[in-house]
């Protein structure tokens, strides 16, 4: 079936099996491989993207369910001139990433969190990112990154 979406501001279309997960539509069909897959139980959040402005784990929905949606992936966060999104810049500033595998999902979830709550407490950041797992950082610097981004916003 043909699935048409707008991804990072561009009209996209691909012919996929009806059972195709959104994350595989993005990765395998549109070749936007920045969105990662870290589990098969919607536990890790590595695949988090924005759909119509809300953060969603893209392994929890079918591509077909995203027909007509406006999708933002990690590839769409920096400006066209390459300037990092403030959340990306904060992660770099605070060493909020090591291997970088959970990072796209973390950045997407964290930027969505700040949209809902522009001045979160440390505890609110931790609770807001509860659905995103990282094995490298122990979260300390991820939380610091999000608080830094909030302060700079």
């Amino acid at each position: 079936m043909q699935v048409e979406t707008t991804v990072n501001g561009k009209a996209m279309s691909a012919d996929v099996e009806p059972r195709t997960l959104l994350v595989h539509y993005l990765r395998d069909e549109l070749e936007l491989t920045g969105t990662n897959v870290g589990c098969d139980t919607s536990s890790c959040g590595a695949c988090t993207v924005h759909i119509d402005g809300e953060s969603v784990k893209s392994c929890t929905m079918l591509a077909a369910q995203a027909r007509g949606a406006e999708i933002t992936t990690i590839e769409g966060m920096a400006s066209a001139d390459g300037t990092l999104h403030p959340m990306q810049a904060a992660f770099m500033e605070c060493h909020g990433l090591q291997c970088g595998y959970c990072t796209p999902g973390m950045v997407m979830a964290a930027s969505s969190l700040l949209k809902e709550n522009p001045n979160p407490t440390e505890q609110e950041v931790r609770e807001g990112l509860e659905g995103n797992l990282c094995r490298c950082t122990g979260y300390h610097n991820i939380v610091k990154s999000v608080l830094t981004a909030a302060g700079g916003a």
Partner: protein
Amino acid sequence: MTAVMGTPMKRKEDPKLLTGEGKFVDDIHVHGELWMGMVRSTMAHAKINAIDTAEAAGMPGVHSVFTGTQLQEMGLWAAPLPCAWPVTEDMLNPPHFPTASEVVHHVGDIVAVVLADSRYRAADAAEMVVVDYEPLPAVASIEDAIAGEKLAHAGLGTNKAFHWPLIPDPDALEAAFANATHVVKGEFVQQRLIPAAMEPRGVLAIPSPAGGDITLYTSTQVPHILKVMLAATTGISESKLRIIAPAVGGGFGAKLNVNPDESLAVTLANKLSRPVRWTETRSEAAFSTHQGRGQKQTMEIAADENGKILGVRAHIDADMGAYMMLITPGVPLLGSFLYTGVYDVPAFGFTCDGYFTNLTPTDAYRGAGRPEASYAIERVMDMLSYEVGVTPEEIRRRNYLAGGGEFENLEVASTLVFDSGNYSPNLDMALDMAKMAELRAEQQRRRDAGDKKQLGIGLCTYVEICGLAPSRALAGLNYGAGGWEAGTVRLLPTGKVEVVSGSTPHGQGHETAWSQIVADKLGIDPADITVLHSDTAISPLGMDTYGSRSLAVGGVAIAMACDKVIDKARLIAAHQLEANPDDLDFEAGRFGVKGSPDKGLLIQEIAFGAFTAHNLPDGMEPNLNEQMIFDPPNFAFPFGTHVAVVEVDEDTGETELIDYIAIDDCGNHVNPLIIEGQVHGGIVQGVAQALYEGAEYDAEGNCKNPSLMDYLVPSPTEVPNIQTGYTYTPSTSNPLGVKGVGEAGTIGSAAAVINAICDALRPHGITDMSMPATPMKVWKAINSADSTANNGGGQ
């Protein structure tokens, strides 16, 4: 240029990873690729009666289906998958091929492989392969293995794979225990852990259109070791194999292996002349990637009336799992030398028995043997402090090596020579930062008040052995390779620098740290330095990344290669400036003639001159291109003090880690930002073992919690912020004075957390708590201790 060594430079790796441009294996695709779908055993131990592949083979998009027997008959393998560390001459090591043919030995053993044109179709077809198993008795735990009534490998006649002793002076050890006032014994379980790097493992093998060469992209820590081992076990010439580890999403030891999937991808791609790929699913990883820990420890300590240690005796039973993988049997031995911790121990004995079970194989996991050792000694030290009636910090002070003062090159009871240490100031700093006196007062207040939430404070003073490794020391342990590392520093005609690293990063920031080392040595802007790594065609020599070795061996090799560059550049500069080499100063990237400040040459100018070779000293080779292969004279021994502060809810048994203080000493620092990140992450992995994680198996050998739904990798809400601090005791094992730090956090934290829980529960008479200390376990311990007390006080 100001110094960049020791500064928190932002990472060069980050922009790509932050924007989705970093390429992991599953991000890379080539035309004509075939997806492997693994048909995995659903039984822990069984005879394969028959496999029906007909339906799977007829499904749309399916290229072929091969059973284990068919693959064996195709002659894909010259030898079984390797174990590089046969710890004893008589160690049992049943052959482990990438697929099982007649008997499966653990749930997840591959019995057939499907090749199809998409990941979905490969998974569909794998499910349609029908296997007729005849169950055999399964050795589903180390207890089963020791009991020996069931055999994990029927043909071996025993489950015991090896016995390994390290008892430098048996008579002294016996005398120590005979003369002791206090003997304290602890029995601990190091539960199996699922490493759970966030990137599942994956492979993509691409045959070249001509020449029979194979390029393997794989999510590995060890491309160089893998290349040698794949060549040896597949029979494909080393010179025809190119291994690339692209962006690798965490390793923690779990990507330090030679896996069935890697061998299958290479050999099938070679046989079929098609690219072959596979990406592990998370729930598959509990079966397709090795696990960590899996030990039972018996730890005894003998002390005099003042708590001064007279001897330490440790025995461990180690669960190898179903097969010996790359360094499976060596993992417990890596810890063997650390069962005496940071203490002055006159007599020492360690024995290890390795056992086969019908479970996923074990192998390296962050710390690999050292967290287990540190846990055992630090738990019994706390037990001894209670026995003697002094505080945990006091019992440690009484026993520190060199009286807690600074030392260099000190031989300890386990026969190793510790490079350097200075333990008391490190402990003092931790106690200060933790505000220990205030914590103890608060603890007492809560005890007196009968507070629902009791406070526990746990201490761990660890030492670890890293910078693997002096090759001769490895020879003594019967390890099948050396421990050197290679580094090349190449000045390009444009004045930029290319650095080739043998050690291979997967999150540690080598590109940044190596740039800092080179920038500092050569006086060149870090932005002009490019670090190449992780591709055996670009970096043909290397021993890779594990055992906290990258900086202490590989970073040092690069620093020493810089020294060679400088030595050669000095001769060129002297020649061109018509000066004596000894009359040249090299500062901030410029050779200047002493006393003539205007006369000098930048190293970039010398590099160009070395490239054109128009005016070099007679007989000198053109170019500045120097390689160093560094084989360290000794290991490095980082140390530190960790303090965990927990609140235990006595009504629910829930433990909350409310504060964590870590004072680490990893010698000199290259990049404090990276060090801090390593410490944080390491600590949380140890905390996870103490509180949350553990692979659980039923009596038939099925893993009950393979997915991230059931296996509790901590989320951001389960861990606190971490307070860090450092002392700086340079290593004597390398010219940079650096020690590793990647595993230190994990080595210190599990013991600190469990010591804290036991400290909180002390009024109940509870002296031990097994890991993970789940709320149910803690609640039961409190209630059972209290009911015993109410019934007459532990009679």
